[in-house]
């Protein structure tokens, strides 16, 4: 098995194919999302920001990237 293997995840409700072995931090970088302004929920678990570099995105993960928007 090699790093080029692809994995499938559900990201904010839509299925995506990603290169395997990517960290959450790497994913955010790729998506051009500022890590300081978002929260990542992985399989129902909220990830601490400090853990983004370590945590690897796994095949079958369900990821929610949320942030604050205008609301009353």
């Amino acid at each position, binding site marked *: 098995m090699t790093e080029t293997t692809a994995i499938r995840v559900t990201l904010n409700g839509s299925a995506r194919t990603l290169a395997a072995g990517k960290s959450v931090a790497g994913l955010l970088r790729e998506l051009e999302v500022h890590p300081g302004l978002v929260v990542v929920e992985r399989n129902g678990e909220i990830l601490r920001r400090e853990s983004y570099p370590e945590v690897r995105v796994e095949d079958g993960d369900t990821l929610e990237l949320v*942030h*604050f*928007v*205008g609301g*009353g």
Partner: protein
Amino acid sequence: MQTARSDAGVGAVRGPGRDRGLAIGPHVLGSRLIAGTGKYRDNATMVEAIEASGAEMVTVAVRRVDLDRSVEEGVLHHLDPARYHLLPNTAGCYSAEDAVRYARLGRAAGLSDLVKLEVIGDERTLLPDVAATLDAARVLVSEGFHVLAYTNEDVVSALRLEDAGCAAVMPLASPIGSGLGLVNPYYIREIKRRLSVPVIVDAGVGTASDACVTMEQGVDGVLMNTALAEARDPVRMARAMRLAVEAGREAWLAGRMPRREWAVPSSPTEGMID
């Protein structure tokens, strides 16, 4: 904007002396107006209106990042969290579970324990599901949240939410976004009389006099969004609301004249010439 603990806003200190501000969880707010950040025609107007409103606490919603975003809708790109206390809400949740999940995401995003708990029970009226709100409040309080609970005008429900440890109880004046104003002053007045945590009227205020008369019931604050966002001139209305909330608070502290069905002259009836 102090942040030292104080019971200033708890109940109301009537009579002479400066009004000491509204204590919510760890914060003491100089302004009794809490502003929503939704539905403005653009972010610039939103920011200017909130500034004009004098609000020190603003509500925000938690939503997915738009990954193929054209426009940047993240509210923190526009509002300085160092300047405003952010109050994440659980708007759009129809169950205790969802509300708890959104509250946790809001805490993670805002690094604050404040949450405006909203569990909707009916899509048409957006009235709360009080039982589910109570369940969610108990969970969140046990997790250390300062829960500001949106509820209906029912005194019994308000007392239960206080018992559950909510930091503030937020009955509505009339349905969210309706602009019907304070429909039932009796209930709001009674809720304020019976609770010791701050009572903040949330939703229904449509114009300045609605905010003013609401504060005259003795409540601790007012939360509004649509009345600002949907005014023809949101910034001007925000200024009006700031003044109206202060006016209503001061009038309540001052103690109004009695109502009479007959007239009483304002000028002396003595000393008339022949």
